[in-house]
């Protein structure tokens, strides 16, 4: 009998997504377009499951990232913290095609963290006295009010890492980490998309950001689009004409 942690490496996104059926609940890492598992997002469109419950901070933006699922009509419900300029989500919500459950960002990540850590619910000060607390238990601790929030656990989590190995030990790059380490813990099946796959042992134990215990399938995807969401720069000062070129 083999456990879940043998032979995790898959060759394609579609293969890695085996078992994702209609009605599945799916966590997808990323903050806006930063840190998206782009190949897995495209792989889900190719497989074409319907009525998905998508939990992700933004569910795409500017027509990119998870907007592909909205355009393909795969999603029934979105749990997110921010819509902003995501016109695909505004449209889907206005037409009634997609139900949107808006959650404060810190509450969203804590619900996911709790789900992965075996904590069914927790009290938070965030949202007390607002629409977020409506219908929920509010309790006072040490003179301050807190609202009871429930954990989130899902069928799948789709995440991205900069470097990883065949067991799923992972490292992240810059602000691409965001929700990913928490989401990886909170799903029955977590699939990791790695920019670079390295041999087991190449990542020093002290340098592992996320241990492979939370990862069930792994694919290597060397080429990512990584679109700029809002490209903000300042001019480079004191650059001499003679040094320009190339």
């Amino acid at each position, binding site marked *: 009998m083999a456990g879940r942690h043998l032979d995790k490496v898959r060759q394609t996104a579609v293969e890695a997504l085996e078992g994702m059926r209609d009605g599945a609940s799916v966590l997808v890492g990323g903050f806006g377009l930063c840190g998206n598992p782009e190949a897995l997002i495209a792989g889900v469109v190719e497989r074409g499951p319907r009525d998905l419950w998508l939990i992700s901070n933004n569910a795409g933006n500017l027509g990119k990232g998870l907007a592909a699922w909205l355009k393909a009509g795969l999603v029934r419900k979105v749990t997110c*913290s921010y819509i902003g300029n995501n016109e695909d989500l505004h449209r889907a919500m206005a037409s009634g095609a997609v139900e949107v459950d808006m959650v404060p960002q*810190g509450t969203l990540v804590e619900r996911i963290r709790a789900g992965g850590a075996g904590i069914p619910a927790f009290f*938070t000060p965030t949202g007390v006295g607002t629409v977020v607390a409506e219908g929920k238990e509010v309790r006072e601790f040490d003179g301050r009010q807190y609202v009871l929030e429930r954990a989130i656990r899902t069928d799948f989590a789709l995440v991205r890492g900069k470097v990883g190995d065949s067991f799923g030990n992972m490292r992240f790059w*810059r602000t691409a980490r*965001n929700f*990913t380490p928490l989401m990886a813990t909170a799903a029955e099946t977590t699939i990791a998309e790695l920019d670079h796959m390295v041999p087991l042992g190449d990542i020093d134990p002290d340098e592992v950001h996320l241990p492979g215990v939370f990862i069930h399938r792994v694919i290597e995807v060397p080429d990512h689009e990584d679109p700029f*969401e*809002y490209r903000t*720069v300042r001019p480079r000062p004191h650059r001499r004409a003679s040094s320009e070129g190339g």
Partner: protein
Amino acid sequence: MVWRREEMAQRAAREIEAGSIVNLGIGLPTLVADYLPESLGVWLHSENGLLGIGPFPFEGDEDPQLTNAGKQTVTFVTGGSTFDSAMSFAMIRGGHVDLAIMGAMQVAQNGDLANWAVPGGKTMGIGGAMDLSSGARRILALMTHTTKEGEPKLVGECAYPLTARGVVRRVITDLAVVDVTSEGFRLVECAPDVTAAEVRAKTGAPLLGG
């Protein structure tokens, strides 16, 4: 003469103590960063998982995987760090962020903050605003004194959906600096050539002081 956006940001920067951890909201509050000298030793926090935000990158150095909470490309200052969203919000809710400077749609005389939705309008979302306003040690609202239509944004009671109750301590607008006290709004300072009477006329609740 009303304060321009840059002058509002500059005035808000004077509220920041040396050696503090500060979160700047999306939009106008982001401009405050331009008025914080390095010598002040302030660490800017971004809720997507970054402490020690630096200026925008030089052209050609931008990295789509290094962004602030407004999804703009940024840099680190020396000593900056990255971390996951749970740790980022532990910093916020756990009282480790000293000051949050936030945009606002309405602030009530009891410190209620509304800044995430307009009834009947397009909902942009909550993002980190509810966690920041409940968790940061001090909340400063930075906004125009009235709407484009001239309606007061400092009000007796918020008509818009709340972000948090009783959290705003000080408001900086294009006209004035106003504190929220246990007795209501109190005028602290007017923009040059703006009179207390003008500020009072454009405020939707009693204004003490001046």
